[in-house]
């Protein structure tokens, strides 16, 4: 029997070793499993860390802070409080036990928990652990203007839309507002209340950040890109002359200008500036046909279309702008598939986020250079030391400075005497462009306004997009853009 006993011993030892092997396998898979929904390891571990505070640009307005709570079995844990409620819900996001994290709370988690790996912090953390002290995270000062954010949220309330304001010189994001919004304090425990949010535009989706994820038909605001292409390629100048019969012929069919009660507008003989000022579709349609879809799309790319804007938000919260096909952005292999005339005035399955259109305005404002958008001003260690400060970085070189200057003059005309007069600010020159994308259903228009000011030395670039509107961009979005710019200009003299 002894032979069998020895063999049996061997078999059972192999079984035990395979259990150890299985445990090792799970260790190997740990990085993959750690981020799984429902895996409490990381989340709970980090609850015992005193997360850093998130501030608005003024360094005083607290957007997110901690509330310490004593829990049986865990000792002190830190739960998040958002004292400003809805004010900056989307960019700041939330950090909860039940629903994980979003926004900066997610993307800057390593900094906020102090687990950003460098030797100094690692050593500090190890010492803290030994001493039994609470581990502290770094504070984050955002670039968000509390005042600008407040005005934007006020202006947008009751509507479905978003507003983005940037400093065109640095890419600092001053306003990132989206409605319908939610109170991040309700995410933990009262999530149903958020889900019950109702809106005028159909699906309320309060958690959706329309400023960075919302895809709107850019409509006539896209004409800024077409105009940039027309001027930058040297094929047209601001004084190039056009004849507007009120329509343009596309594939043998008429595409009419924007129509009011009296039928499609007809402008007759106009120059390029007047064409932009009055947003004449027929003229842009013909420019588009002359330039070709390839060139127009190339300039869109130069302004940042087809790239994910490098803002410090989680990648899945930032959408890419461009032509869309089956829910994905695509660049046509054969440009003949794209109707260049309709593309030139921002139709033809073109979709853009408010952030992207703000970057377009900022690019023109900044002499043709689009800066990297940034939400973070600086990150400060618990002892007050500076961990990181963001510096202005160029993102895209879109157009020549000369083109930018010409385009600025044309966009000023829009506000001074064209479709965007509602955005006029007394004493401050404003350059802008309206957009009204008709969806064919009354009351379902996407309306836009993109602008920057002061036009001669821009410090603010803004994009406002609304859905479910029955008016035009000039009457619905321009006043909101104006209010936001006014608020920001007072702050940034």
């Amino acid at each position, binding site marked *: *029997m002894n032979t069998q006993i020895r063999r049996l*011993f061997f078999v059972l030892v192999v079984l035990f070793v395979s259990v150890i092997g299985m445990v090792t396998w799970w260790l190997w898979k740990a990085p993959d499993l750690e981020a799984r929904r429902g895996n409490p390891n990381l989340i709970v571990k980090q609850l015992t860390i005193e997360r850093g505070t998130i501030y608005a640009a003024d360094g005083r307005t607290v957007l997110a802070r901690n509330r310490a709570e004593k829990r049986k079995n865990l000792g002190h844990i830190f739960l998040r409080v958002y004292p400003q409620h809805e004010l900056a819900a989307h960019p700041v996001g939330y950090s909860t036990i039940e629903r994980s994290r979003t926004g900066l709370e997610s993307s800057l988690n390593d900094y906020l928990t102090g687990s950003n790996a460098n030797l100094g912090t690692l050593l500090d953390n190890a010492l803290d652990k030994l001493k039994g002290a609470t581990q502290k995270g770094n504070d984050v000062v955002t670039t968000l203007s509390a005042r600008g954010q407040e005005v934007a949220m006020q202006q947008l309330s009751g509507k479905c839309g978003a507003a983005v304001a940037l400093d065109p010189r640095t890419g600092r994001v001053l306003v990132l507002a989206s409605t319908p919004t939610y109170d991040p304090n309700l995410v933990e425990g009262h999530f149903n209340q958020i889900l019950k949010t109702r809106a005028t535009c159909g699906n309320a989706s309060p958690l959706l950040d329309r400023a960075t994820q919302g895809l709107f038909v850019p409509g006539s605001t896209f004409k800024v890109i077409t105009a940039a292409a027309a001027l930058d390629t040297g094929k047209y100048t601001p004084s190039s002359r056009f004849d507007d019969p009120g329509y343009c012929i596309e594939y043998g069919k008429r595409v009419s200008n924007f129509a009011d009660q009296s039928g499609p507008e007809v402008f007759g003989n106009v120059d390029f500036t007047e064409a932009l000022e009055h947003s004449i579709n027929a003229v842009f349609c013909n420019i588009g046909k002359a330039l070709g879809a390839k060139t127009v799309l190339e300039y869109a790319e130069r302004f940042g279309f087809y790239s994910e804007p490098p803002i410090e938000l989680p990648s899945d919260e930032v959408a890419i702008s461009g032509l869309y096909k089956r829910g994905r952005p695509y660049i046509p292999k054969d440009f003949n598939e794209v109707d260049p005339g309709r593309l030139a005035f921002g139709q033809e399955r073109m979709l853009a986020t408010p952030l992207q259109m703000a970057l377009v305005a900022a690019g023109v404002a900044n002499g043709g250079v689009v800066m990297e958008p940034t939400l973070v001003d600086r990150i400060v260690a618990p002892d007050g030391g500076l961990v990181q400060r963001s510096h202005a970085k160029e993102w895209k070189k879109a157009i020549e400075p000369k083109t930018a200057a010409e385009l600025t003059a044309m966009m000023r005309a829009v506000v001074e005497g064209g479709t965007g007069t509602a955005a006029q600010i007394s004493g401050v020159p404003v350059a802008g462009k309206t957009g009204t994308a008709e969806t064919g259903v009354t009351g379902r228009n996407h309306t836009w306004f993109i602008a920057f000011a002061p036009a001669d030395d821009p410090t603010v670039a803004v994009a406002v997009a609304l859905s479910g509107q029955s008016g035009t961009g000039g009457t619905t979005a321009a006043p909101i853009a104006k209010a936001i710019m006014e608020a920001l200009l007072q702050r940034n003299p």
Partner: protein
Amino acid sequence: MTLRNRELANLILVGLLTAAGFAAVFIARRDEVSTGSLSYAAFFLALFVAAHVVVRMTLPHADAYLLPVAGVLTAVGLTMIYRIDPDLALRQGLWVVIGVAAFAALLLFLRDYRSLDNVKYVCGVVAIGLLALPAIPGLGRTINGASLWVGVGPVVFQPGEFAKVLLVIFLAGYLRDNREMLSMGAARFGLPSLKHFGPLLVIWGGAMLVLFQTNDLGGGLLYFSVFLAMLWVATARWAYVAVGGALFALGAYALYHVTPHVQDRVSIWLDCSWSVSKACPVYDEGYQLAQSIYAISGGGLFGQGLGEGVLISPEGHTYIPFLSTDFIFAAIAQEIGLAGAAALVLVYVVVLYRGFRIALLADDGFSKLLAVGLTSALAIQAFIITAGVTGLIPLTGITLPFVSYGGSSVVANFLIVGLLLQISNHVNRERA
């Protein structure tokens, strides 16, 4: 050094280890636990020293490692249960006292374990009776889909744990008597005659039937494996293992088709093991396994530290249900890591080694088979549950010997160690 002094030295080592474990939990969780808990280690050591004294009195030649190894396992279990729920640890401590008392009683009153050979059929019948107890209406209690418990007033116990010991005794006696006939294979087709195989089949079939009746898959797998192991050791015939394995596969297949419970377990296992697919945590039981795997993978090489792992939510419930019973191995892996979990598994290998060594040295068939059966029962049980919670095999609820919370299990396992020590004492005395 004499065997007994070596045993005492080992026990003192275990006592120190226990003190370190309790101190670690105490430091990590001083907000919730009292300083009184630090005396637990002393109490624990005193208990095992008492057991040692009984061994010294009755079994001077017994193996010097089995009792300390049982001590290590008990200590790991108590520390872990204490960390999960201090009140539960107190109750487990009480069960350890009862287990040691049962151990002492066995050593003091059963002067010669070989007399068990005379009552093997009684053992077999009583075992089946015990297994059938939970199926009696009014007496049985169903917990987590399996009706394994018997409740009399406030006391709930698991008769299957004791049936396990009795069945091994029956098999050891029976196989010793019939091993020649069984291994030669009589009559036609080389099959043993019904006369020799019949009683075995009857007892065995009864046990399996009862197990399926009570939905205790872990128990079924355990008893069947131990049965096959003992049969193979006794007869050295692969054919039995093959036929047995085929029978088990057939039974499992049939069971798979009639019991939704089994189907769930298998599909959960397929969804969860190797990669924890998205489908895995959807079912309640898949959620258990997914949480178990998260805990194991989150433990890392050396664990989160005793008392510092992520086991209990801020709301106060454990992330893994049945944490201190079925899933205690996951809690151990979370808090003392791969190193700790592997060390724990190696402790079972030591149990296996010491137990099989006793069997190898024994000169009579009954002792050999009894030692092999009891040791295999401990080892296979440890394998089934550790492999289950790691996703290596479909999960079936069963205790991790000496470590999991569970009174019946602790007491039965102490009886197994007592019997092994008695066999060892006999073997070593003969050899000396």
